[in-house]
């Protein structure tokens, strides 16, 4: 299936300064009418919405669909609220709200059994929308010798479903092309994060977040062009290093903190690494473009990937991975957050804080919600936390 010819996000191209480009990107990210999805559909393109955390977007891209990352939204769940009970995280409700309010029109929805709440989402979505709602069962036994071959076949099954939506067959070469595009994207994002680690004064946490996250809203070739343009501009920035502590932010793997929260953190800390939208950066190396593409993607998911509280892998104890992230980023401290009512995040906080205590690494524990609007208390606490470390 041919991709729509016209770019869906062009506003940034009229600008040459980093500040202006970032401003356009931020506007897009905060636009709850999702103009890029509408523009894509207006050209006859089909959209595959995929819920957090990781989804092999290459499959949708190879089929000519727009892979749209569903990450909740800071809005009131007017339609979705009555479909859920109490004691749930916000992202579930607001994600469904996007569909029920027709803010986002999809041709297919895919979710994953990442947590007890989210694994209900496909059934709920399917009971309320006519298009296909699939669960992609990524292996929860990553240590089984059979996991890779199972996942290859699971990807094949999903590809068959996607082909039914698009009405076209996806060849291996289509997948290889897609892998090439996404390899480039991953490489560009690694460069972005390298800047955060080495010269964090050139790129604040909220700016990096905006640049990363809009990848889930636009076709990857467009995202690649954007990143290719801004990376040199960021590197050429003239900001000077300030007296701020270097921290790792943990807890943004699913529900997303408001931008304002990230800005608040950025006022006192350099966030030198994080797990924000980790699904878009899940694969940590280039995926081979020769051989069986589905096997390559499956192998990469299992053996060349990041970590999150929603994946169990005996090779990747989460607290060890966090300590490695802190070490690799040369961070002074960690901000350990969890979305309200997020069980995996809240459970992991205990292991993280024990490990950090053991290593005598300072940490700041907090909870957030995508809809929160008050940050004053957090700001006071963060300021105190940062000062304690700096003047210790």
């Amino acid at each position: 299936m041919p991709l729509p010819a016209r770019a869906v996000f062009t506003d940034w191209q009229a600008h040459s300064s980093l500040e202006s480009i970032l401003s356009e990107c931020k506007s897009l990210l905060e636009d709850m009418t999702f103009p890029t999805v509408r523009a894509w559909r207006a050209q006859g393109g089909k959209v595959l919405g995929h819920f957090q955390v990781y989804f092999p977007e290459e499959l949708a891209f190879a089929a000519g669909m727009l892979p749209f990352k569903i990450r909740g939204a800071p809005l009131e769940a007017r339609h979705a609220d009555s479909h859920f009970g109490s004691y749930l995280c916000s992202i579930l409700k607001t994600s469904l709200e996007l569909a029920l309010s027709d803010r986002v029109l999809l041709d297919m929805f895919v979710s994953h059994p990442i947590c007890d709440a989210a694994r209900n989402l496909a059934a709920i979505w399917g009971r309320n929308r006519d298009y296909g709602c699939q669960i992609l069962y990524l292996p929860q036994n990553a240590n089984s010798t059979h996991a890779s071959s199972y996942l290859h076949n699971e990807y094949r099954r999903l590809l068959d479903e996607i082909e039914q939506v698009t009405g076209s067959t996806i060849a291996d070469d289509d997948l290889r092309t897609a892998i090439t595009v996404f390899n480039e994207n991953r490489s560009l994002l690694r460069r972005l994060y390298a800047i955060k680690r080495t010269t964090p004064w050139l790129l604040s946490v909220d700016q990096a977040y905006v640049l990363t996250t809009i990848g889930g809203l636009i076709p990857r070739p467009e995202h690649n062009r954007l990143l290719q343009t801004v990376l040199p501009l960021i590197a050429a920035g003239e900001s000077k290093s300030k007296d701020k502590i270097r921290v790792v932010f943990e807890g943004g793997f699913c529900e997303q903190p408001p931008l304002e929260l990230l800005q608040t953190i950025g006022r006192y800390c350099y966030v030198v690494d994080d797990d924000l939208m980790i699904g878009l950066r899940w694969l940590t190396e280039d995926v081979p473009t020769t051989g069986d593409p589905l096997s390559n993607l499956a192998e990469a998911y299992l053996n060349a990937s990041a970590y999150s509280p929603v994946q169990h892998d005996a090779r990747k104890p989460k607290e060890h991975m966090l300590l490695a992230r802190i070490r690799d980023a040369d961070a002074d401290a960690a901000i350990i957050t969890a979305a309200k009512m997020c069980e995996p995040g809240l459970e992991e906080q205990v292991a993280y804080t024990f490990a950090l205590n053991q290593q005598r690494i300072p940490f700041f524990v907090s909870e957030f919600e995508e809809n929160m609007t008050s940050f004053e208390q957090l700001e006071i606490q963060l300021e105190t936390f940062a000062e304690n470390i700096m003047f210790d």
Partner: protein
Amino acid sequence: MTQLQTVENLVGRGNTEGADLFRAWFTELEQTAATGGHAAYVFVMGSMAEILRTFEIPMVFPEINSLQTAIRRVAHQFLNEAEDYGYSPDICGYVKADVALQLRQGDHPMGKVPRPTVAVLTNACNTYVKWAEIWERMYQIPCFVLDVPGTRDIRSQSHPGDPSFENDRLYVEAQIKELINLCEQLTGRKFDIDRLREVLGHANRMNKAWQRVIDLNRTQPSVFNALTDGTIYLGVSNSFRGSSEGSRYFERLQEEMEYKSSQRIGTLTNEQYRLVFVGVPCYPIFRRFNEFFTEWNGTFVNSTYLWFASGGANRAFEYDLTRPLASLSEGTLLSVRDAMDSMFHQDRAVLEIAETFNIDGVVFHPIKSCRTVSTGLADGRRALMSARDIPSLFIESDMMDRRVVSEAQLKNRIDAFFEGLASRRLQQSAKS
């Protein structure tokens, strides 16, 4: 044998024998705790009792231990300890009660619980995985996640023989073989396939009788209460799965229920309302919660809990003893998948029950502690209401945490529900 003697011998036997077996099981655990032998921590949805029993590894069900603290009204002490340790009030209460139990070196109101030497869990509930990671950290034990892929699409299902089913089954079979290897390493025993056949044979007998017992509750009046009696049966079903005691228990339970059914001996003397329970029981006030319904002569004739908390044993998958491993993988896949479906597609389960159980209403009981079961209930209720005209009640509380159980509020809602049922019945009789 006179009828009176039969009534004396039979009626209530399942509950008495179930309680005895449960005590015996706990005594065995105490012995394991004392001697320091192997103990596998497992869960009700996919315990892999078939394999563990083949290796004679005692099983501990932390879910059952935790709910027992709630029934015995001491759960709050355990929850407070775990929260003091660092766990959030907003996570699963079972997990927290178990954390406190581990911190107490296994001291439980029913006795001493042994420390785990291995944890075996499925992905039927994601919290199982997070929970096992706690033991992994506390005790540095192996945690075996048996990944059982579930239903992918609300509109279609794979079946034995389909390529996608076979992909899932082969994955499960490969993992079962890996579990066997792990058990061999742990115990130093060689895997005995004939012993597995024997265990599977007991599981077959238990499954068959369990399904029949559930079916017998179609009788009017119903022969057991799915909420209260059902919880006893579930305890035996899980802890004695694959054993001669377990299969014998369920065959004798079937005998009791057949008798009650034939003699029209109901669990209530004046059954007025036949209800289905969807969700997890309110254990902190278990008896009182049930009385809210029985005081109105309402009883639970079936529940999704009986389905998923037995790991899908209600489907009575029959293992083929001529090809035990392939059949075990197929049975595990089908049963655990069905258990998951009865949580995520509970509206369908209720519609299936409504076909033959002649029900008057459905009680949806989402709880704070369990998102697996509770997240989809409000939407499931909407789907049910649009599919059939069945009165339903939606009440929230918890399975462990009495801080979120409001007895007065529950009673008000339940009373209003029954008043509505009574009024509806009057209107229907006036029309006919």
